[in-house]
C-alpha cells in the first residue's frame, strides 16, 4: 500500500517548525491586548441596537411615568451637584494645604466613571473592556465594593483591564488598623494572600484592604474577603485563600483612578 502524500512530504515538518516558532515569538508579545482593543469598536457597535431599543422604548411609556422619572433624575442631579461642590471645595482646601506644607510633589488620585462594554468569556471575567477617554496603563479600576484591577492597555476611547484574579497582578494588602504587610495575588478563580505570619492570621470573613505600599494602589481600598486559613506545620506563614470583595461580572459601570493632573 503506498504511503499517503502527507507522510512522504517533508513540507509538514517545516510547517510544524514554523508554527512552533511563530507561537514562541507571539507568546510574550502583547498582541492579544491589541486585538481586544481593536475589537472594542465592534463590541460598541454590537451594543448599539440595545441602546436604540432603550431609547425607542421611551416613546411607548406613559407621560406620567416619564414625568416621575424626570423628577427623580432632577432630584438625584441636585444631590450630586451638592456633592460635587463639596468635593471641589475640599480639593481646593487640600491643594492649599499641600502648598503650605510644600507637598505638591505627592501624586493625587482622581476617579472617573467608565462604562463596561465587554468581559472575557471565562467564568470569572478575568479581563474587562471599558469605554473611557484617555485612560492609561496601570490606572486603577474599582467598583463600588472594592478593587477590580489595573488598566493593561488603552487607546483614546477604550481600555482593557486585568482584574486582580489575573496571575500577573499582585496587590500589597493589610488588615485595617495593623502593620501587617501581605500580598494578594490572583489564581484564576480565587486569591491567595501571601506572607501572613501565623500569629496575625485573620479570621474567615475578614476584609483585607490595599496597604498603599509600592505607590501603585491608594491605601484603604477593600480587596479580598478571607475564605479559608490553613496553618502549615513548620511554616512561618499561613496559607490564606480569599475571594475578591468586588463583583465586577455584573457591573455596568466601574471607576477608573488616574494619578496626578491627568483627567480622562
Amino acid at each position, binding site marked *: 500500500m503506498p504511503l499517503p502524500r502527507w507522510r512522504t512530504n517533508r513540507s509538514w515538518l517545516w510547517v510544524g517548525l514554523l508554527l512552533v516558532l511563530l507561537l514562541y515569538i507571539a507568546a510574550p508579545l502583547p498582541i492579544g491586548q491589541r486585538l481586544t482593543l481593536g475589537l472594542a469598536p465592534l463590541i460598541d457597535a454590537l451594543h448599539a441596537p440595545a441602546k436604540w431599543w432603550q431609547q425607542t422604548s421611551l416613546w411607548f411609556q406613559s407621560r406620567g411615568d416619564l414625568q416621575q422619572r424626570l423628577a427623580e433624575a432632577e432630584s438625584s442631579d441636585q444631590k450630586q451637584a451638592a456633592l460635587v461642590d463639596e468635593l471641589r471645595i475640599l480639593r481646593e482646601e487640600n491643594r492649599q494645604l499641600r502648598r503650605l506644607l510644600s507637598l505638591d510633589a505627592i501624586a493625587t488620585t482622581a476617579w472617573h466613571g467608565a462604562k463596561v462594554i*465587554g468581559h472575557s468569556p471565562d467564568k470569572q471575567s478575568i479581563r474587562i473592556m471599558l469605554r473611557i477617554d484617555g485612560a492609561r496603563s496601570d490606572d486603577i479600576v474599582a467598583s463600588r465594593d472594592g478593587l477590580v484591577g489595573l488598566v493593561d492597555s488603552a487607546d483614546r476611547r477604550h481600555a482593557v483591564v486585568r482584574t486582580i484574579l489575573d496571575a500577573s497582578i499582585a496587590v500589597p494588602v493589610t488588615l485595617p488598623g495593623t502593620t501587617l504587610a501581605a500580598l494578594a495575588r490572583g489564581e484564576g478563580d480565587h486569591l491567595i494572600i501571601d506572607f501572613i505570619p501565623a500569629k496575625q492570621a485573620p479570621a474567615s470573613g475578614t476584609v483585607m484592604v490595599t496597604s498603599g505600599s509600592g505607590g501603585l494602589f491608594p491605601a484603604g481600598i477593600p480587596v479580598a474577603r478571607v475564605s479559608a486559613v490553613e496553618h502549615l506545620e513548620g511554616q512561618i506563614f499561613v496559607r490564606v485563600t480569599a475571594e475578591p470583595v468586588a463583583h465586577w461580572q455584573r457591573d455596568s459601570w466601574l471607576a477608573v483612578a488616574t494619578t496626578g493632573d491627568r483627567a480622562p
Partner: protein
Amino acid sequence: MIPPLILLLCIAGIVCNLGFSGLAVQPDWSLALLLASVLAHRGNWIWALPGVFVHDLALQWSVWMCVPFMALAPALMALIDFQAGPGLPQRFFVLLMTTIPLLFWGWGFGAWLLTILLCMAIWYFMARHHVWA
C-alpha cells in the same frame, strides 16, 4: 467564498463572546465554526488554523489554548484515517481534544457543552455542503 465567510463569522463570534459573556452562557462561536470546518474537511486547516490563532489571542491573550490541539487535529485525523480507515470516532476524539482546553481556561461546563453541540451541527451542515460541492 466559504473560507472568508467563515472567518468573518468567526470575528463576529469573538465579538459576541466578548460583548455578551457577562449576560448569558454562550458557546465559543468561533471555535465551533473553525473546528467544524476542519472536521468536515481536514484540508481546511490551512485557513482554520490562523483563525484559531486569532481566536486564542483575542479571547485568552495566549496562543496555548486551542492552537496546539488544532494544529495536531488534521495530522491526527490523517494518521488514523490511514491506519484505521476514515470514520467518525477519530473525529469525535479530535472534537473533544480541541474543546476540552476551554474547561481548563475557565470556561463554564455549559459553555463547553454548547460549543460541542454547535460544532456538531455546523459540522453536519458543512459536511453535506462539501459532499454536494
